[in-house]
């Protein structure tokens, strides 16, 4: 299981990355994509959609499973990864890079201290 060190992780198997422009990129973890199996459908919110803390913002689905997506931080969706909705298997192939899902502009200076670091997340699924 691949858990890059520079990310924050949730117990519902999303990752968040703090970008230099203050936005946060959100995706699902390598563990999550592996558990789901081949992803065949990705549903993401519209740009401009406002998300509350832990709000469901979409789904990733394999043939037999539906994985709900939750965002740990409140904010506004400023970008979605159309490549992932067009070609869902990139989420399997590259969950941390090409298979990212949304970027949000957090409502306030995002407090990520409640999230797990890579070591804690890896331990959760050890």
């Amino acid at each position, binding site marked *: 299981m691949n858990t890059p060190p520079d990310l924050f992780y949730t117990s519902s198997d999303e990752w968040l990355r703090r970008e230099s422009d203050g936005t946060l990129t959100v995706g699902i973890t390598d563990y999550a994509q592996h558990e789901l*199996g*081949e992803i*065949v*459908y990705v*549903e993401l919110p519209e740009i401009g959609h406002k998300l509350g803390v832990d709000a469901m913002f979409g*789904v990733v*689905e*394999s*043939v*037999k499973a539906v994985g709900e997506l939750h965002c740990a931080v409140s904010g506004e969706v400023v970008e979605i990864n159309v490549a992932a909705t067009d070609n869902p298997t990139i989420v399997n192939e590259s969950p941390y890079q090409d298979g990212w899902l949304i970027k949000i502009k957090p409502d306030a200076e995002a407090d990520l201290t409640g999230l797990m670091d890579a070591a804690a997340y890896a331990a959760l699924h050890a």
Partner: protein
Amino acid sequence: MTAESPLRQTALLAAHLESGGKIVPFAGWELPVQYAGVKAETVSVRQNCGLFDVSHMGQFDVRGEGATQTLNAIVSADWSKIRVGRAAYALLLTQNGGVLDDVMGYHLSKNHWLVVVNGSRAEVDEGHLRALLPPHIELSNRYANQAMIAVQGPQSQTLLQPLCDANLGQMTLRDALETEVLGQKCVVTRGGYTGCDGFEWMGDAATAPQLWKLLLDAGAAPCGLGARDVLRLEAGLPLYGHELREDLSPDESGVSFAVKMEKGDFFGREGLQHKRQSPPPIALRGLQMEGRAIAREGYEIQYNGEVVGVVTSGSPSPTLDANIALALVPVQLTVGNSIEVLIRNTPHPARIVALPFVARTTKTSS
């Protein structure tokens, strides 16, 4: 079966783990949901050959003088017409004409049937049968030592034949023989639950791992419950607990072909006759989604802005590259009608299509 009950293990559990099967609890058993992936396994079955461990299915030997007539007074289909060496589909009905289970009966010899039932219903069915069978008809549950492997797909005969005494080329759909595989007595039947040509082997648990391994070595792909569910859905076949339920009549579930009222009395006939005094308000239909969103079990169906029905099974179809579903809708809605499936509070258009979704390729004649 409560969540705390220990799960039963089939004779093939070690083989599943060795092949990378992902094991889940199902109908009280530990079974693989997938190996390489549901899509790849579905394609293997449609194009080549896939193996399924279906050892969780309930297997009951019913023996005794007049076993055929006795069973015929329990099941919905006319088993008096099923010759030795043939198998038949039927329903067990509740007193008031609901569906208790759907079953296969294999007429193995005069006065001997093997009845195979859904794993999730095996206990209910056994109780039902025991309550209705007279004392001189013996029912024995094979489950302590049972195994069942479904070999499915166009290459099934080629892969299974070298291991089997019977001439498989002479068998057509729903032939059922007592024969030998790997020198061990067993039952082999032509058929399955995928809409493809194939065979089912029912034999001793001790033989199962070797048979499984030899078929894998010959080129069959190990397949899990996920692919089995997709394949049966593509073939438009109902599954107990989804399309078939005690609170639905065979007419509503689309299985009235398995009910022969004219054959004489059978358990639940009167209840069904009573239900049939008014036409069924709902019917099982096939749906194909217009877009990419996937209909799943439990999602509501809308027509003219009103909720009128519910999805009973839904999945992407790897064979069709489309999203398909079975749904209970008002009987007036039929092939060609457009409806909407409510997915996460958003209506998604779908149209009602003919069943099966994927044409069956079973071997109905030699």
